[in-house]
Each structure stands twice: as structure tokens, then as C-alpha cells.
């Protein structure tokens, strides 16, 4: 009986919501780490720290590895927000494409709409072509990472619910 209660607890919405939060956090860590690597190898002239730290702080340490680590951590926490929004709006659509679109939207939001917030980041028109492509790729992967996981979990929950209903009736 304990087994049953356990697996059912996982299957309700709040269980999936906490999973979504975890996915958001890890997605933020992972893809901002990719961002740092891309910045290091100059795939892109802006890295996570250009947004999260350098726009406000100009202290010397933000340019070193500490700045990178801190911005990765920060990105992890900030990334909870997109996960929550995705969970609230798109979770019912079981397709990776939505995640990809979501990534593009996020990219547009950060590089264009919210751009005035980040004083350290050049205008979209001033960015090099390679930076634009790299950052779009990164955001698309990030969006798919978050979106696909949340939709997949939700979809599976629905399938299991249906099975349980069938088993009971």
C-alpha cells in the first residue's frame, strides 16, 4: 500500500511542479555553463556574466572565474522563472517545438525587449553575427530543455491517470 501512495504522490500536479522547478534550476546551471564556455572561446562576445554581473558591477573580480561561477549560480535561480511560466502556460502541449519557440521568445525578450537593463551588452544591431547565432542556439536548446521536460512529465502523468482510472473501473 505504501508503494501506491508513493507513486500517486509523485503523480499529482504539485509533484510535477517541483520537478519543473528542478528542471528550471538545472537547465539554468547547465546552459549558462555552456554560455560561459562559449564566451571563453569567443563564440559569443557576451556571456552570462555580461548580463548578470557586469551590467551592475565593475569590480575586478567579476572578470575572473569567480564572476563566471557566480553568474552560473545566479542563472540557475533566475531560470526558475521561465520554468514556472512554461509550466503555467504551455505544459499541455506535448511537443519539443513549443520549447524551441519558447527559447526564441526568451532570446528576443532578453536581447531586445529587456536590453536597456543591461548596460554592458551591445545593441542587437551592434552584435557580431556569430554572437547572435550562438546565443540563439543556446536559448533554443535551453527552451527545449525546459519545455520538453515539463510537457513530457505532464503528458506521462495524464497517461498514468488514465491507466489508473481504467484499472479502477
Amino acid at each position, binding site marked *: 500500500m505504501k508503494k501506491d501512495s508513493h507513486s500517486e504522490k509523485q503523480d499529482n500536479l504539485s509533484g510535477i511542479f517541483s520537478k519543473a522547478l528542478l*528542471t528550471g534550476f*538545472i*537547465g539554468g546551471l547547465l546552459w549558462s555553463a555552456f554560455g560561459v564556455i*562559449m564566451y571563453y572561446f569567443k*563564440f559569443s562576445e557576451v556571456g552570462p556574466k555580461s548580463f548578470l554581473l557586469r551590467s551592475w558591477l565593475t569590480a575586478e573580480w567579476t572578470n575572473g572565474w569567480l564572476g563566471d561561477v557566480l553568474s552560473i549560480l545566479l542563472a540557475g535561480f533566475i531560470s526558475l522563472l521561465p520554468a514556472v511560466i512554461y509550466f503555467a502556460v504551455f505544459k499541455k502541449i506535448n511537443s519539443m517545438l513549443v520549447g524551441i519557440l519558447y527559447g526564441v521568445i526568451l532570446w528576443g525578450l532578453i536581447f531586445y525587449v529587456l536590453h536597456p537593463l543591461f548596460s554592458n551588452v551591445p545593441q542587437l544591431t551592434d552584435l557580431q553575427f556569430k554572437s547572435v547565432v*550562438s546565443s540563439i542556439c543556446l536559448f533554443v536548446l535551453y527552451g*527545449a530543455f525546459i519545455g*520538453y521536460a515539463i510537457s513530457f512529465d505532464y503528458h506521462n502523468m495524464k497517461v*498514468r491517470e488514465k491507466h489508473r482510472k481504467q484499472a479502477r473501473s
Partner: protein
Amino acid sequence: MPDTKDKYPISADIKDNQKFMKERVGVGVSYDLGFREVVVLKRKIQLYYLNGMVDDPNIIQLLKILIEINDNEVDKKKVYEIVENRLVNESVEVIKTMDEAVDQMLSGLIVIFIDGEKSAFVVDVRSYPGRQPEEPDTERVVRGARDGYTENIVINTSLTRRRIRDERLRNEMLSVGERSKTDVCVSYIQDVANDDLVKLIKDKIRAIEIDGLTMTDKALEEFMVERGWNPFPLVRYTERPDVAANHLFEGHVIVTVDTSPSIIIFPATFFDHLEHAEEYRQTPGVGTFIRWVRFFAVMCSLFLLPLWLLFVIDPSLLPKELSFIGPNETGNIPIVIQILMADIGVEFLRMAAIHTPTPLATALGLIAAVLIGQIAVDVGMFSPEVILYVSVSTIGSYVTPSYELSVANKILKLFLVLMTAFFGVVGFTIGFTLIIFFLANLKSLKTPYLWPFLPFNAMGMLHFIFRIPVPYSNVRPSIVHPKDNYRQPTKKS
């Protein structure tokens, strides 16, 4: 065989049966069809068998018993009952139709017709030609079981059964191929494996219509998963019974095909292909370390060459401390061509090594070392750094536990190299993204191929990143949707 076909009953006149066997099956034409006639109590008795699948002593023994009836029995009216009684084999069946008789004989059983009777006996003393279980070449471990599957499906299922003495383990036998009638065995643990998955697999196998499965499990696989031109292995093969048993416990379904020493594990993800039995033979710490190093090597085999090419094309990408990377002199041939040539050269070697006879292998190795290594550099064909990176990436692909995956990775690597060569940084990043989405979009029997990475699953990923000690790995992987999620009783706390 279509069901509509008329069934031929066994005739009471043995000459009719003999004629049937001669015309339909080719007794007397095919040399491997054995035929022997003896007279017992003035009634003709005919034996049909395949001489390669029945041991001679068995046939002699059988004939001896039949002839001894003449010395010991007198009741001529009861020949049928006497013969049935005297057949002291463990498996004797009575059949009524000629079709059954032919099928059984071609599977290696002995069919016995008696004149004046409308049924025949089938005696099972077959022994298929085959080898003993040996350690599979492709999946060696330092310690651990050294038995491997063979070409015989009966031995294979019993090797698995020895590891799972559970009454809920099901080995369902199906037959595929109109002409070859290949035995296919679907194995699963009934209260663990997902019903839908088992049903899906069985339906797909039943739907196969083909004359013969000579390439056995590979041919079967192509019927099971929609493949197209995708080079990636969507199912996992193994020749190790312990790996197979472990996957059964996890809720996977296993398909064994007769005459193949490898079995198919359904479904399989990308990350399944990166695991190896060796990890489970070492302490969890060491196992984790091995897994990380292996993952790193596989990533090297994929991304090292394109990345290096990128830095050669555009040295400004390199940070100051890494600026030593890149060839000192570019040589006479563009680096991309050098990479492609060296890589395809390595491919030549790999293919040659597969079917080079052992006595020539040393010579092949020597030629390889000299040719690709030293002389090519001296002559000015290759820059030494190209050799270094091609070698590292090749070794990385040999580290990949799944041979199929390593070959598929090779194709991806070439794609990435070309993308980088044509479009530089942009080509590399777009190529990388495309590869991830291509893989994520693949499905192996409704299972996302990149699970647990995309879609992300924390528990599954944890089990991939760390080799969790067995007492703590309590949860079956959720991707196979097991009916029973727990491997051990959950502790009451």
C-alpha cells in the same frame, strides 16, 4: 503459411505418404534429408529426419528398438501401440497431418510413419550444430561472468533463466518468416514490464511478413523501429546474459532470435549505449570514474576534431593561454582535407581489421603505423597535429561500448567537420544544435532517444552520472513505465 491452404491428412497407405515426401519435400534429392525403412511385424515403418540435426547414435538406437520388436512381440494387430510404447524417448508426439510432419522434420525432429495408420510419431532428439557459451568478444569484462549467448535460442533462454528463477519471467515463442520459420522469443517479467510495451513489440513481430530472417536480429530490428536513414542504433544489442537479465529486472523487454548470439533490448536510449557491464563490476566510485572518463572519450570522438578545426580556421577564437593550439606550419594540403583523408584512412584500417585473417593482422598493424604515422608526415601530406587529433578521436570512438553508436558518431563527426569547414563558428554552433535536436527527435518505440537529458529527468540523469551502489538503486528507470516501480521493498520509516 496462409491458413486457407488445405491440410493434407496422413494417409493410411504409407506409399501415399512416401510419395508426398518425395514430391513436396525432395527426399532423395536433398542429401541432408535422411530416410530409412524397416519392417516390423510385417508392417512397413518409415523414418524421416535431417541427418545434420540428429546424432547418429540416436537414430541407430531408435532403429534397434524398432527391430527388436520383431523378436519380442507377436501381436500384429497392435503394432501402433507397441511402437508407441517402445519409443523410450522423453519427447514423443502424435501428429495427424503431413504439414506438421514436414514442419517438424525440417526443425530437426524424427518423424515415424507406420503403414496402415493415420497418425505419425514425432521424436525429439535433435541437437543443433553450435558452439558452447563463450565470452563475447565485443563485451569483455575484467571480472565477472564469462558466458555469452550462442546461436542456439534454447541455450540462450536457459542462460537467462538461470539468472532469473522467477515464475513471472515469460519467454513467449513466435515464428517469423514464411520460409525460414525462424524462432523469435520475447522475454519479459510479467509484473514489471509495461503491458503496452510488450503488446506493441509482439504486435510488431507478428506483423512482419518476410520470407526469411537470415540476418536475424538486425533484420528484425529494422521492422520494429522506424529507421529510415538514421544511423543511430535505436535498440541495444548485448551478448551477455547478465546484462540481459539486468535489463529484464529494470522492466525492459528482450527479444531473442534463433541463430543469433546477440539479443535485442527494447527500448534503448542514447545513454544506455554508453553503459558497460564493467562499471557494475567495480566499486561504485571506480564505476562512476570509468563512466565519466568514457563519456569524456565519447564526447572527444564527436567534438574534438571539429573544434580543433575551428580553432585552426579562426585562431582568434583561442584565449591567450591556449594559443599554442594549431599547426605551426599549415602544410601543403588544406587542414580540412587532411582531416577527412586521415579519418577515412583510419576507417580503411578499421574495416580491414574486421576481416583480415589473424596471421596478417601484425602486418596490417605495421603498415598502418608506418603509413599513417611517420611517412605521411615526412612526405608532407599531413601535419603531425592532424595525426594526433584524428588518433585521439578514433580512440574515443573505440572507447564507446556500443559498436553501432561509435560508427554513428563517426558520421555525425564528419557532418560537424564539414559544417565547421564551410561556415566556421556559425556552422559549428548550428551543427551542434541540429545534432542535439536530431537526436532528441528520435524515438525508440515511443521512447525519446535522449532521455534522461532531453526531456530532462533528474532521477534518470543521476543514475547516469553516478554509478549508484546497488543497495540504493531502488527505483526502476521510469522511461520503461514499469508496473512495479521498486526493486526492493521500501523501508518503513
